[in-house]
């Protein structure tokens, strides 16, 4: 997709992410990058480059404010997403359990385990590329990584934000120290994971390099879908839903905006990961 935009008008497009999901991901990107930078600045406060970064952003008070503001955005998008799931269930009129177990659910299941095995074989050259459905197992992992991360980092973050309140409820003082370690290391895990694994799996892997703009444009061509997620394509075609999912190609303006924003976000992410690796090697104790 990325390397042949000149021919998009001749192709048919299928919607992958609805506008609400795309908006949420936009919020995730913005808040996550903000949290990552402002958080790492304090995690690696002994490292000159982060001290400079802090100054560039207006000092520790500004970074602290940005961090908390981005945290609020995180809580908001988290809530919005839960609301989205509830609305979706209502719309489809099926019980939650069924929704979680459905073909399009992000909840990992037995099939993912099988696909993981097949993938390993494919990697090693002893099997074909698995027939992935709407969500691959690594995409499901990404999703739950965020889900888990928001919970853990969010809760420990709240504790650090309002230590006086939480200790007045009976939480011992040393638990704030524990929360600091959890918050900080879990954040390192999240940042490290997103900016390396997620970036590679989604954007930098050779067949998508240098980026996959679908999260911003929302749609993919039928050819790409056939190649990437054959099972989803087959299922949609069989159920006759494919036609319903057909959409207009993304406008050139949207494409351009997606690329500019996408590259910016990727670059910031990469820059952060470089700084982190540099600090970990030379300064971390």
């Amino acid at each position: 997709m990325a390397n042949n935009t000149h021919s998009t008008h001749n192709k048919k497009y299928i919607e992958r992410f609805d506008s609400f999901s795309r908006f949420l991901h936009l919020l995730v990107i913005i808040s996550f990058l903000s949290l990552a930078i402002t958080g790492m600045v304090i995690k690696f406060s002994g490292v000159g480059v982060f001290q400079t970064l802090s100054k560039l952003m207006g000092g520790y008070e500004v970074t602290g404010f940005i961090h908390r503001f981005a945290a609020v955005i995180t809580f908001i998008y988290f809530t919005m997403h839960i609301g989205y799931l509830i609305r979706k269930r209502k719309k489809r009129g099926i019980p939650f359990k069924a929704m979680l177990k459905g073909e399009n659910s992000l909840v990992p299941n037995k099939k993912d385990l099988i696909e993981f095995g097949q993938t390993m074989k494919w990697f090693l050259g002893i099997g074909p590329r698995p027939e992935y459905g709407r969500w691959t197992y690594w995409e499901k992992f990404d999703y739950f990584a965020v889900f888990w991360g928001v919970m853990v980092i969010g809760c420990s973050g709240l504790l650090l934000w309002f230590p006086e309140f939480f200790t007045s409820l009976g939480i011992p003082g040393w638990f704030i120290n524990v929360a600091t370690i959890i918050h900080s290391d879990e954040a390192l895990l999240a940042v490290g994971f997103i900016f390396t694994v997620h970036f590679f799996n989604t954007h930098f892997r050779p067949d998508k390099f240098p980026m996959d703009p679908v999260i911003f444009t929302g749609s993919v061509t039928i050819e790409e879908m056939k190649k990437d997620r054959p099972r989803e394509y087959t299922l949609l075609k069989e159920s006759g839903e494919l036609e319903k999912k057909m959409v207009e190609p993304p406008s050139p303006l949207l494409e351009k905006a997606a690329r500019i924003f996408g590259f910016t976000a990727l670059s910031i992410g990469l820059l952060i990961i470089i700084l982190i690796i540099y600090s970990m090697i030379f300064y971390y104790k």
Partner: protein
Amino acid sequence: MHRYPYLFLFIFLLVHCINIYAQDESEICFECHGDRTLITEKNGKEVSLFVNSNRFKKSVHADIGCISCHQDVNLDDLPHNENLAKVDCSICHEQAVTHFDRSLHGAALRQGKYLAPTCASCHGKHDILSSTNQNAKTYVMNIPSLCGNCHKEGTPVSKLVSVKERHVLEDYTESIHGDGLFRRGLIVTAVCTSCHSSHDILPHENPESTINRNNIANTCTQCHRQIESVHQKVIKGELWEKEPHKIPVCVDCHPPHQVRRVFYEESFPDKLCLSCHSNKSLQKTVNGKRISIFVDQDELSHSAHGTNPCIKCHTNISNSRNPVCLNSGKVDCSICHPQLQTEYNSSRHGTLHSAGDSNAPYCTDCHGNHNTLPKTDLTSPIFSRNIPDLCGKCHREGEKAAVRYKGPEHEIIKNYTMSIHGKGLLQSGLMVTATCIDCHTSHSELPFKDPRSSVNSNNIAATCGTCHLGIYEEFKNSIHSPSVTKTDEKLPVCNDCHFSHTIERVDEDDFRQGILSQCGRCHMDVTETYFDTFHGKVSKLGSVKTAKCYDCHGSHNILPTYNPRSTLSRENVINTCKRCHPNSNRKFVGYLTHATHHDKDKYPFLFYTFWFMTFLLVGTFSFFGIHTLLWLPRALKEKRNEKKKKQTYWKN
């Protein structure tokens, strides 16, 4: 006497017999010498040999008879030889004659000078009277005229070149002594012999002379006992005995022979000095350099010494020199300021100066000379506000003292000016602010390494405490005080945290941030762990208001946490935290401000949490790292295949 009654009686009878005998033999002498016409010829001159027996019988020697003095007369063989030897008074008056012999009079006599007096010149011959006898020439009332016989103006003696004092008798008569003697009949008044002695008259250059500079005070105090207490206003009394060379001698102010009640005008009056020194072009040569020795009278009169006569400082003035002040040397301020001089002498400035260091400042370098002003005068160089400039003359970077200084303090004046003390003094105009001399002292400044120095580690707290007493008292009871903590390690003192010349407000950002490294110099481990926790991390990002060491531990009153008075004791810790965290509570203060996840025994929870998280991270990244590493070559291969397929497709 009661023990030897017989001995006493014997001596009494012996003396009495001699008297009787003497009177008898005198009668024999007067048989011839009682004749007024008895003459002899000596050197071609007729000389009367008559002795007035009445006068002799009234003289002090009446009882001892003629033979006691004229020992070469044999009464059994009369008439005796005409050429009798000269009477030797030393037979009885040994000391007087010894003194006379070495005196000016004696020396002149030995040299055969015809003006030289003999014993008889003053005492007479056969008619010698006791000096207590009012008719005696040596009676106190008669002394001036006796001496005046030779020494009054116009006599041959007074015309001798060697005699510098003129009009001595006239002056004496007009002097307070002469006035006492002649007009008030005060026989305890000093006469010539009181000062010059009667027989031991020596020139004033002779160190043994009673009128030598070094002895004159002793001579005068024979009568003027404890005169030094009267003179305290003029001359520091204690120097009279200890260091008499430092003070002007009596005669410098009270010229001999002319001693008056109003003396200065008459001795070396300022007028005399200014007759030369008011000349603006007056110069002298020192080490080949021409130096102005003009004295600005106006400046002098407005100075702290304005009412002092010149001679009070310039003591080494003498009539024997011309001009009287020739080579009088440097003024010795210790005459009036002995304490300060002692301090100065032991100070760095003083020791360098006495070692001959030309860079070392002397009194006048700071205080000026004729223009010296009290420190209360706004224009005085030693007025508080002017002190930094004064010291800066040598200690400013690049100046002569700063250049030779090898220690750690640089840009002293510049730093001081920017310091809280400097700003207080120079910007806020706060004259109680510490200047150079408040810490270094004005006269006993010493390098900080010297244990006597006011800025030595052991003394600096007390030095600062002279102004910051309250803090000093707190500090004295804190754990950093040597009286509380006994240790071989160096305990911190004021300047370890506040620095010396760069001292600044403690609420300034730089100070708050800087304190971490100050405490950290000794408390390295807790500083490191401080930086592992929130306060430290935010501080590293430049947060000033975040808690620093002293916000929790206190500053000057630091005590171990187990001390109930410590800011971090169980009783106080909640309130201490409340200063920043208003809702602080018992559980909240359990936050570990110096926690580290590296100490398994002290902080097991943190240790295990950290390692759990580390394994989680390492596990996740390992898994996906391998996943990616496997994926990458596969994906690249597929991409190449696809390209190839496309190429073959287009070829076909």
